[in-house]
């Protein structure tokens, strides 16, 4: 049986899973939409993994992304890691000389500055979803262009259109205005890609020295229009890794591999059968004080196995 390390990256929009062997060779990757159900999407990916590769000997499992805690509980993760560290680990592993990582996902975007293979600075967008995959998704739907063809279409534009960046609310009204002027869909999409990149560099890159080589990853890296806009803005080549969308999951798989190999502890992975278990997440408002924290709890066989969301530790401390 083949020994693998699993990395699971549960984002707001998509769920990514990667399996690597003990030499860090890629065994399996999958990229699917979360559809608001992180647990289901992870179960589905695990089933697909088992169906395609047969029984595997899982030596370790790590989770990352905004759903890392919840899914970490479900699969029995050995390592639960933030996505900034996970992304940087994967990129540095594949491109040891990388200096700047652009990562744009569904709900957030980051710039990570690397020096000699070590993260030295990073920036992450705030709660606003401007300039992320969700916004592109929304605009693709409005223009009735499938998101998969969005980038390609941008490359076909013959003219430049300037669309306001800064805030996507302005960008949207600007786009509608330009549409009424008679610009083609392709041109508008190109303008939009450029606005998004400008916005991203201005916001996240503020005060940072961005030096090549640049690596562009995250779900949005599949969009050729954005990639072209990045190349135009930075004036040099932008590397897009093969598994650009899966970098977070690959990163956390690498982290868990290092961790297990170094410490030699046995994995806490619950096994592929978790795909058949019924984990029930729910939330309630704690009435212990006037903070009224929203507590998220996870039950397995009607027994609470984890909880979080409290400020005082009343619930968090009482679970495993």
């Amino acid at each position, binding site marked *: 049986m083949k020994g693998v390390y699993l990395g699971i990256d549960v984002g707001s929009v998509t769920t990514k899973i990667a399996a690597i062997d003990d030499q860090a060779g890629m065994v399996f990757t999958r990229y699917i939409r979360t559809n608001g159900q992180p647990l289901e999407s992870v179960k589905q990916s695990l089933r697909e993994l088992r169906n395609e590769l047969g029984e595997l000997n899982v030596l370790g499992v790590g989770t990352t992304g*905004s759903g890392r805690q919840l899914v970490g509980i479900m699969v029995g993760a*050995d*390592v*639960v*890691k*933030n*996505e*900034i*560290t996970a992304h940087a*680990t994967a990129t540095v592993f594949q491109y040891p000389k990388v200096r700047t990582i652009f990562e744009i996902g569904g709900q*957030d975007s980051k710039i990570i500055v690397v020096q000699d293979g*070590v*993260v*030295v*600075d*990073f920036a*992450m967008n*705030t*709660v606003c979803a401007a300039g992320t995959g969700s916004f592109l998704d929304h605009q693709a739907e409005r223009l009735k262009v499938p998101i998969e063809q969005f980038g390609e279409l941008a490359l076909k534009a013959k003219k430049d259109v300037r669309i306001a960046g800064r805030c996507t609310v302005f960008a949207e009204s600007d786009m509608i205005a330009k549409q009424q002027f008679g610009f083609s869909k392709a041109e508008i999409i190109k303008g939009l890609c450029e606005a998004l990149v400008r916005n991203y560099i201005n916001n996240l890159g503020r*005060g*940072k020295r961005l030096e090549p080589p640049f690596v562009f990853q995250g779900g949005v890296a599949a969009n050729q229009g954005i990639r072209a806009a990045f190349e135009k803005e930075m004036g040099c080549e932008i590397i897009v890794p093969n598994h650009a969308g899966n970098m977070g999951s690959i990163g956390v798989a690498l*982290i868990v591999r*290092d*961790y297990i190999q*170094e410490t030699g502890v046995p994995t806490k992975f619950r096994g592929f059968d978790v795909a058949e278990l019924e984990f029930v997440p729910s939330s309630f408002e704690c009435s212990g*004080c*006037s*903070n*009224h*924290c929203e507590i998220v709890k996870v039950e397995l066989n009607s027994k609470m196995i984890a909880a979080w969301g409290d*400020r005082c*530790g009343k619930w968090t*401390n009482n679970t495993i």
Partner: protein
Amino acid sequence: MKVSFPYMGTPIGYKKIAALLGHEVIDPPKPTQRTIDLGVKYSPEFACFPMKVLLGSYIEAIELGADTLISSGGHGPCRAGFYGEVQSKILRSMGYDVDLIIFDSIKRDFLGFYRKVKKIKGKHSWRDVWYTLKFSYHTIKILDFLEQQIETVRAYEVHKGQSTKVWEMIEKKIDGAYSDAELDRVKKEAQEMIDEIKLVQVPEEQKIRIGIVGEIYVVMESSVNMRVEERLGELGCEVRRSQYLSEWVDFNLIPARFSPSREPEILRKGEKYIEIIIGGHAKQNMGAIVDYKEQGFDGIVHLMPFGCLPELISQSIMPKVSEDLDIPVLTLSLDEQTGRANSLTRLEAFVDLIRTRKNGKCIIQVS
């Protein structure tokens, strides 16, 4: 008088002054979501976060029966100096009949300070006042001394959350101590409790020390800063703040000649980045960062309330400071939002960054 005051870190120190001068003390409620909601509702939208939380705290204290509120003012060109006036206007327009006494620095307005003290003093002799002030100064000195130890051991505790629980017990004990003898006894007990916390042994070169700088209210009050000290402690970092109550007293209330305050020195160190006092503690923060670097700290967490003018200025100087001193800085902007996931991710990644820088390699902390 039924006296109350806002939370800014533990309020035990000022509570003692009021109680020893014979006032009924209304224990101020620690800010919660309700406090913030109340403050946001009745404050101007563009006012900064501390003003809103303070207003909410006043309203809650009044609901509990307080008729006199005591707080400290601000100085320099920061809006905080104006809060007192605005807040008492808002409270009056809400129909509350309450006295809001704001203490500004004694060095700026001696007469005003004297009048306010006289009002609170009541019929007590000046000797009593002197004893009271000395006693509460002694109390906050002890509190800060103990809290700094907690800020260190929290990083290495075996049982997660123990230090925080011990600290809460210590606060209660000190709260109940009303004589010098009792205070000394409690201090000893507290020290024993801290010494009993079981610690993981971490090699010196792997220890991580982080300095927290920023606007004084969000730096000192844990309920509005996502309990950043505890979070960093959980991530295995020792923490120090640029602000402690006793240090504030040392600098602002004690005549310079007798003051043990390091603040003039800190201010000098900040001169290179911000020449003049631009309000709030922006200049002190610059100095504090230089000072932390000299002490061998590994990183700085910079807290600012959204829309805080002095800190907005320091934020834009941060990249230069960080580069000059070769120390990583993470700026977190705080507001009424409750979603903490985003900020926690940053804190975690920041600690990873420091750990990797320090050890050349990330020593994995399973969190």
